[in-house]
């Protein structure tokens, strides 16, 4: 009881002092001379349940593995790292509450958010309000940095516009004669947005393509028989689909069984994460993407030994190859390490506060196993995109791309200050002349 009284008196004094200095208004942001913490807490929001856990759980495994490695090597700036995970699946209201709890109650130093674009759209304003450095580690919506300024938010990978534009450019470069196209995308934000990006860019770069079917089955649909029948009947030259996870596996299996792949060329920008599950069921000769450049058979990785070390460590632990969310998590963690190193160096060895850490992220260049990513002034990362054609080799028991084109990030990303759809409308067919040639084999 007496302790409580004592604490409340001290607490009152602290509140008064804090209110005067303003430090309590923004938790964790106040001290200009931040103390080196006993541990560096990282709040990570990811899907731990529901259909998108096919991405979220492997990403969690990656974070746990890499944090163990970092801690074995002495931590970041000598501070051990600890992850606190939150499930995105219950929805944005729950997530927003959990984000606040992690920042205000748990005192996390950095937030990683999220897989779903809806989650990122909900969390990013919180990074502004709480002044907490937030790494958007996987979500793809172009709206984040095109519709607002977020000084504490940084995306450490590409986003929807380059991830859709690169496969379109690949199609136009390698199979320019198509006249008809059908789309089958999941009926939610990503499915609709990715179609808008594709359609806008396609109309600018190759006007006159006839869209013979626009299908938007619900997210998590267990059966696409009817859609496959309709696509078989419509006989489009190209079928574009940004399906992912189990939905993509179901679509490919049902379409392959009924020979739809023999009639149309598929363009699957998010195929990589499902290729292991599909194994030999994935037909060869169709255009596949990976939301970045991190293919297991990357033709010229920046650091082959580092890529191989990561892939083999993950395989040893999980008995499967890492998929793109694992690489995105790796990129986010690499960025965090690089930013802390930069901020600590800038402070002459002192531990950075939130503002100093955020400042270190702006314009940061960090190395990944496959390339170097630069964070632009708006917080968006510039990540190259690699697109290729599905093929089989002796090295992998599943499809990997061949005839890959590495699209430089700046070529396929919306310039700072512009909105994607407006920018895409200005594209000219001459752009195709700038597309690099496929890397043979």
């Amino acid at each position, binding site marked *: 009881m007496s302790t409580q009284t004592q604490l409340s008196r001290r607490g009152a004094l602290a509140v008064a002092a804090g209110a005067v200095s303003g430090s309590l208004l923004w938790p964790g942001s106040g001290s200009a001379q931040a103390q080196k913490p006993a541990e560096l807490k990282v709040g990570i929001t990811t899907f731990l*349940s*529901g*259909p998108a*856990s*096919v991405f*979220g*759980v*492997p990403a969690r495994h990656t974070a746990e593995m890499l944090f163990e490695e970092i801690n074995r090597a002495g931590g970041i700036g000598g501070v051990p790292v600890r992850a606190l995970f939150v499930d995105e699946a219950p929805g944005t209201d729950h997530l927003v509450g959990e984000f606040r709890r992690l920042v205000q109650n748990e005192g996390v130093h950095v937030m990683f958010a999220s897989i779903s674009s809806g989650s990122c759209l909900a969390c990013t304003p919180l990074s502004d309000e709480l002044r907490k450095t937030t790494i958007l580690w996987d979500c793809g919506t172009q709206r984040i940095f095109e519709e607002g300024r977020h000084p504490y938010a940084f995306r450490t990978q590409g986003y929807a516009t380059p991830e859709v534009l690169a496969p379109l450019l690949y199609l136009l470069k390698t199979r320019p004669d198509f006249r008809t196209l059908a789309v089958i995308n999941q*009926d939610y934000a990503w499915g609709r947005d990715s179609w808008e990006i594709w359609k806008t860019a396609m109309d600018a770069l190759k006007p006159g393509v006839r869209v013979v*079917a*626009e*299908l*938007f*089955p*619900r997210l*998590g*649909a*267990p*059966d696409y*028989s*009817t*859609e496959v*029948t*309709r696509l*078989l*009947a419509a*006989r489009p030259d190209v079928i574009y689909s940004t399906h992912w*996870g*189990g*939905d993509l*596996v*179901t679509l490919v*299996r*049902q379409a392959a*069984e*009924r*020979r739809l792949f023999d009639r149309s060329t598929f363009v699957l920008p998010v195929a990589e994460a*499902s290729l292991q*599950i599909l194994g030999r*069921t994935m037909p060869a000769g169709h255009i596949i993407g990976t939301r970045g450049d991190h293919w297991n058979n990357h033709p010229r990785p920046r650091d082959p030994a580092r890529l191989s070390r990561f892939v083999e460590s993950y395989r040893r632990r999980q008995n*499967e190859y890492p998929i793109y969310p694992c690489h995105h998590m790796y990129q986010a963690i690499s960025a965090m390490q690089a930013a802390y190193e930069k901020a600590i160096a800038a402070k002459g060895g002192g531990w950075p506060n939130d503002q100093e850490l955020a400042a270190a992220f702006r314009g940061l260049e960090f190395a990944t196993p496959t390339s170097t990513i630069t964070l632009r002034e708006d917080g968006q990362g510039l990540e190259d995109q690699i697109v290729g054609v599905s093929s089989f080799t002796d090295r992998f028991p599943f499809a990997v791309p061949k005839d890959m084109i590495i699209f430089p990030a700046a070529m396929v990303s919306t310039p700072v200050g512009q909105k994607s759809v407006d920018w895409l409308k200005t594209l000219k067919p001459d752009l195709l002349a700038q597309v690099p040639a496929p890397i043979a084999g």
Partner: protein
Amino acid sequence: MAGWLEQNALLLGLALLDGLAYAALVFMVAVGLNMVFGVLRIINIAHGSLFAIGGYAAASLGLFLAARGLPDWTGYVALVLAAALVGGILGPVIERGVLRRIYGHEQVLQLLVTFALFMILEDAQKLIWGVQPVSNDAPLRLLGTVDVPFGEDVIPFTAYQLFVLPGVALATLVGLAWFLRRTLTGRVIVAVTTDREAATAMGIDARRVFLLTFTFGAGLAALGGALASPTTTLVPGLGAATIVLSFAVVATAGLGQIEGAAISALLIGIGRSAAVYLAPEFEVVVPYLIMVAVLLVRPQGLFGVVETRRV
């Protein structure tokens, strides 16, 4: 209208074929849910989990048998065996361990308990099978495809989709109708469904009937999942998606109506398929539009009976 029909007759024919297969799968889940409600008067949210677990078990068993070098046709045995195992083990455990404690309680409590059960089974599923998609399409591939004429073109359909799914659903419907009307056990179930108090007064052991019905309903859900497993991909969340659609079928049919479930499943299956061809924007909502339209006209469902509430 005649011109439109002539123009779209081929497409509608394709929609009918697709709708039948879809309806067959939906029926297999909905009929079990409907039976369980008819007898136990409990809306079992965990029914979708039994569908998912039936699917996972069938795929795993099929892959296991294939890995042992057994002939491909044993994949069909795996479908039935897995459903029987899931229904036979999980049915009694859930009925005896959980449901028996909440008979006669408020529906809200029953919903909460079965929802909790659903969450537990979802997590158990993730613990056993992980979160990556699981599939075994050997039974689908074994039967190959059938080319259906479409004008000067042909449309390949899988024989599994065209014959096996509707065939099993029809056999289930006929078998169930025969069982309920022509066998003593079936008539006992019907008696408990119609008037539990009178049936109990006549000496029927209602508890045994509850156990039998729930086990059978669980088996049907698992069989639905097992039959779906060669065509679909099993992922976390499959159970939730299934249960929502099954409720739409059951509500359209009228709670406790088995033949009604078949008709509703057909309506919803064909309606959804037709939407994919004619108005794809409405594909997702068509099952629920049909449900709402039916409930506006007949609040008790197509085949439901108005009940007198005892005061």
